[in-house]
């Protein structure tokens, strides 16, 4: 076996690491570790000069292993693997020690943090010795795309993809396309008609030969991997199979049911209605109470189910502006009415939104702030002398006064929450939910469209509450990503898969039912298990379950991990008592 020659690079990350970790000292001290040929510190390893430094050293010192001690491998592992590749080294002969997110940023004692950095690097150095070259593998990309959900997001993505001549399967669980937008009257902030926006798009979809629409359809089952998915769908009880290379999840969301908020007593007051119901009222053209009268006092309660510990902690994002839109529409329809907003605070970011707020507040609209945390407004029945139907009691936060507001109609700006089947669908397509039950994107900042499952994208409000422009941009971004992949023709698949050593496998089949991707099968003739490396996602569960040690999890082998443990805990780097 050739001699192991490791290059170690300790990154300063400006002051992010260097402030808390004595990087120069670390680089100097680790130089004496076995097999370390060069050990250097540098301001920004991820920068071009930083990468060039590695490439130069690999060539000059004939390095065959590289350890970079910097930020999280989740951020820059790929960057450095590329650098190794550029230097002609297999990218997997690389290991990162995370001394930023897991060290300099979270600790306060420089000496401790420095010592910890050394142990983390020692672990990485130990591990990298056992790294092996792994070869990239690619599969052909099926150019068709499955889009789940026929709302504005799904429709926008479908058109974008189909317009470039690629096949789209658009699945919608209800009996028509359009989603929530079908029930919207005007859209804020510019008061465009929602129907005028959505109808032509639906027409275009229906007339596009590249788009197959499946209404009243559910997904039963999904198998495969990026580039080669297949699914079973059931449409009105009839099953059908589809094959495609990418998936866009655009399942949207649903309105929060305010029944659970006792103070609003939505169930018992006929004129306490949700924003969804009011929107329908606007669309019908008449603002009337249940008794058929024009309301004199209209109150709008914000954040119903949003930004509240007991319901949803997140902001539903569009309700403030929708409420302002309502105010404008009410003011035009009923010029003499009194309009009250009971709100927690006004969120008017986004193009044209602050302007909408300013414009609306000039229209004789009263904004009353309530304490979101523990003091919600209460809706009560009014008495005859109050000359109105209901009274809303609230402790107004800005004035510190207890006030009551006359109301003949109360509009609850209900939160947006994830669909009840979000979890099931997420499990089917392999997308996890965040704490708020919305789908998690791959990276909240840098990759807000893709998911951790290759080939699956989330767009629109199933990822988090969104307004129309954001949904559309995300949908089109996903479409662009998919088109690029289709154009490329092939996709890379997981390299760090499990592999069975047939010499050792005894055919006990413990691994077969462990695999979540049914990637392992039993070869009766040879009496061994076999891993389908295209299906394998490299989770390593089978490797842990294999009692004979026949399954090797590439890049996460027993040997690699055990060596890392040894390095982490090497005596010389132990914590001292303080």
């Amino acid at each position, binding site marked *: 076996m050739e001699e192991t020659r490791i290059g170690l690079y300790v990154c300063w990350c400006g002051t992010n690491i260097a402030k808390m970790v004595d990087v120069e000292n670390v680089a100097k001290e680790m130089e004496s570790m076995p097999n370390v040929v060069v050990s250097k510190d540098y301001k920004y390893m991820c920068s071009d000069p930083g990468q060039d430094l590695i490439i130069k050293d690999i060539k000059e010192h004939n390095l065959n292993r590289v350890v970079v001690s910097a930020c*999280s*491998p*989740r951020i820059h592992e790929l960057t450095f693997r590329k650098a190794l590749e550029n230097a002609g080294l297999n990218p997997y002969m690389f290991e990162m020690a*995370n001394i*930023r*997110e*897991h*060290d300099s*940023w*979270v*600790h*306060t*004692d420089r000496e*401790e*943090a420095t010592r*910890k950095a050394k*142990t*983390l690097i020692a*672990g990485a150095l130990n591990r990298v010795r056992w790294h092996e070259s792994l070869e990239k593998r690619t599969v052909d990309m099926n150019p068709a795309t499955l889009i789940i959900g026929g709302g504005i997001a799904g429709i926008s993505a479908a058109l974008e993809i189909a317009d470039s001549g690629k096949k789209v399967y658009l699945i919608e669980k209800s009996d028509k396309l359009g989603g929530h937008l079908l029930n919207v009257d005007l859209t804020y902030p510019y008061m465009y008609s929602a129907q005028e926006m959505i109808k032509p798009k639906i027409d275009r979809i229906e007339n596009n030969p590249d788009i197959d629409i499946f209404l009243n359809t559910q997904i039963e089952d999904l198998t495969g991997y990026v580039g080669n998915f297949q699914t079973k769908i059931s449409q009105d009880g009839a099953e059908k199979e589809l094959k495609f290379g990418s998936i866009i999840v655009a399942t949207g969301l649903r309105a929060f049911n305010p029944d659970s908020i006792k103070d609003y007593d939505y169930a018992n007051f006929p004129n306490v209605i949700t924003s969804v119901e009011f929107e329908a009222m606007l669309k019908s053209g008449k603002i009337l109470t249940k008794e058929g009268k024009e309301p004199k006092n209209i109150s709008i309660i914000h954040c119903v189910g949003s930004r509240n510990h007991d319901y949803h902690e997140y902001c539903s994002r569009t309700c403030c502006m929708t409420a302002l839109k309502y105010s404008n529409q009410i003011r035009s329809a009923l010029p003499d009415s009194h309009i009250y907003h009971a709100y927690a605070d006004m969120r008017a970011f986004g193009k044209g939104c602050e302007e909408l707020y300013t414009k609306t507040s000039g229209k004789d609209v009263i904004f009353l702030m309530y304490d979101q945390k523990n003091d919600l407004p209460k809706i009560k029945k009014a008495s005859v002398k109050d000359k109105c139907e209901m009274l809303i009691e609230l402790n107004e936060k800005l004035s510190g006064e207890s006030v009551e507001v006359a109301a003949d109609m109360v509009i609850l700006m209900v939160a947006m929450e994830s669909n009840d089947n979000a*979890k099931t669908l997420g*499990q089917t397509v*392999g997308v*996890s*939910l*965040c*704490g708020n039950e919305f789908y*998690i994107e791959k990276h909240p900042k840098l990759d807000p469209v893709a998911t*951790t*499952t290759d080939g699956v994208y989330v767009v629109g409000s199933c990822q988090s509450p969104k307004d129309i422009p954001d949904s559309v941009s995300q949908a089109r971004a996903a479409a662009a990503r998919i088109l690029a992949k289709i154009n490329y023709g092939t996709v890379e698949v997981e390299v*760090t898969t499990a592999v069975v050593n047939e010499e050792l496998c005894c055919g006990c089949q413990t691994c077969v039912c*462990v695999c*979540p*991707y049914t990637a392992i099968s039993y070869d009766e003739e040879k009496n061994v298990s076999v891993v389908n490396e295209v299906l394998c*996602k*490299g*989770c*390593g*569960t089978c*490797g*842990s*379950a294999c009692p004979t040690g026949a399954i090797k*999890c590439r890049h*996460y082998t*027993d040997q690699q*991990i*055990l060596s*890392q*443990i*040894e390095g*982490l*805990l090497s*005596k010389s780097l*132990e*914590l*001292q*008592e*303080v």
Partner: protein
Amino acid sequence: MSFQPTIVSFLCNWCSYTGADLAGTSRMKYASNIRIIRVMCSGRIEPTFVLKAFREGADGVLICGCHPGDCHYHEGNYKCLRRFHLLQKYIKQMGMDEDRLQLKWISASEGKQFAELADSFTEEIRNLGPCKVKEVMETLT
């Protein structure tokens, strides 16, 4: 003079490691005793690793995975959970405090929870005192 335990933590790449990263990007502060090893899934974590960590001098081992139902690989965390229970029973039989090994669920968004967990686990292990496995091993050679 307070005892500074050494803790090895196995984190799954998708939830817990990301959660620990989030604790970092949010600049939350926690005890520096914890050393993190990344695996793709908590389902990859096997007893050998845990025992090895104790053998090499860890005073506590913390395993973190995605919350039940949230596993990136569907159910690797359940596999880990099963092994964890058996392993805890085993180390207890071997004369160790079973709480030296713990399994917690940390999601990608739970940076704060991770920081708190790192602190509370460190404190718990500090109260348990040093783990003698390595010391005993040294007397054997």
